[in-house]
C-alpha cells in the first residue's frame, strides 16, 4: 500500500463524508469530515489501513470547536489528521472508544477540558480535574475566567 493508494481509497469510499482532503506535505494529510461519520472513518483507518491511533486534540477556535484525530501508518510514514468541526451550540459527537481502546482517556480529558459530550463512551467521568471542580466550567475554552475566589494570581510583590 502506498500513499497514493491510501488517499484514493479515502476519496472513493467516503465521498459523501469527506468535506475536504488537504494534502499538506509528503508526511501528512488532513481530512475534514462531517461529525456524524467519525466512527465509520476511524474504524476504516484503524482496522483496514492498519494505522495506529496516536492521540486526539481538541481546540477552541472561537467560532467552533474542532477535534483532530491523529493516525499514523508507520510502513509508509504517513500521518493522517482527521478534523471534525463542531458548532458551539451542539457540542456532541459519537465516541470512538468502543472501536479504539486507546481513545478512552483522551475523550474523557477533552470532555472535561472543553465540554464536548461523547455519545456512547463507556465511562465518561473526570480524569484530570479534581472532583470538586464545578459543573459547566471548562478551563480550555476561550471564555474561561477564574471561578475560585481563593486563588491568588499575583506574584506577591
Amino acid at each position, binding site marked *: 500500500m502506498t500513499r497514493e493508494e491510501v488517499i484514493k481509497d479515502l476519496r472513493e469510499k467516503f465521498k459523501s463524508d469527506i468535506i475536504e482532503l488537504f494534502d499538506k506535505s509528503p508526511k501528512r494529510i488532513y481530512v475534514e469530515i462531517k461529525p456524524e461519520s467519525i466512527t465509520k472513518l476511524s474504524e476504516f483507518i484503524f482496522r483496514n489501513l492498519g494505522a495506529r491511533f496516536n492521540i486526539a486534540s481538541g481546540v477552541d477556535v472561537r467560532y467552533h470547536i474542532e477535534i483532530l484525530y491523529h493516525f499514523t501508518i508507520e510502513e509508509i510514514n504517513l500521518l493522517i489528521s482527521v478534523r471534525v468541526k463542531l458548532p458551539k451550540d451542539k457540542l456532541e459527537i459519537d465516541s470512538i472508544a468502543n472501536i479504539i481502546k486507546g481513545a478512552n482517556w483522551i475523550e474523557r480529558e477533552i470532555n472535561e477540558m472543553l465540554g464536548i459530550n461523547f455519545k456512547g463512551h463507556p465511562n465518561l467521568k473526570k480524569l484530570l*480535574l*479534581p472532583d*470538586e*471542580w464545578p459543573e459547566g466550567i471548562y*478551563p480550555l475554552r476561550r471564555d*474561561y475566567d*477564574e471561578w*475560585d475566589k*481563593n*486563588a*491568588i*494570581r499575583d*506574584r*506577591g510583590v
Partner: protein
Amino acid sequence: MSLKLNALLKSPWVFHLSTGSCNNCDIEILDCLTPRFDIERFGMLLVGSIKHADVLLVTGSCNRKSAERLKRLYEQAPKPCLVVAIGECSLSRGMFIDSYNCPLPLDKIVPVSVYIPGCPPKPEAIIAGVVKLIEKVKKGT
C-alpha cells in the same frame, strides 16, 4: 533550641514529594543523594514514608489535586517537621501562575522553612540551602 530539633540536626531524614513537577528538580534531588554529591554521608537519608521523616522536600507547583495530598502528608508528619521548597515552581508556581489548576503557592498551604530557587536548582544550591536550614535551626530562629 528544643531538644527535638537538636536531635534532628544529627541526621535529618527526608521525604521527597513531587506535587506535579516536570521531574527536573526530582532528578537534581536524587543527584544530591547519590554518590556524586553524596549528602547521605551527613546522615540525610531518603525514607519511604512521611511518618519516618523529619524534613519534607517539595517540588512542583501544587495543583488542586496534589494540594490536598500535601496537606494530608503534612498532618501525618511527626512534628517538628521542616518543609523545604525546591525549584521555581514550588516557590511561586513559576510559569504556571496563571493556570486554572494551580490556585495557591506552596507557602500559603503549609509553612515553609527554606526556599531554594532555580529551574532546576543545581545540587550545589540544594546543599547550600540545606546548610542554611541547619544554621537557622541551630540559631533557634
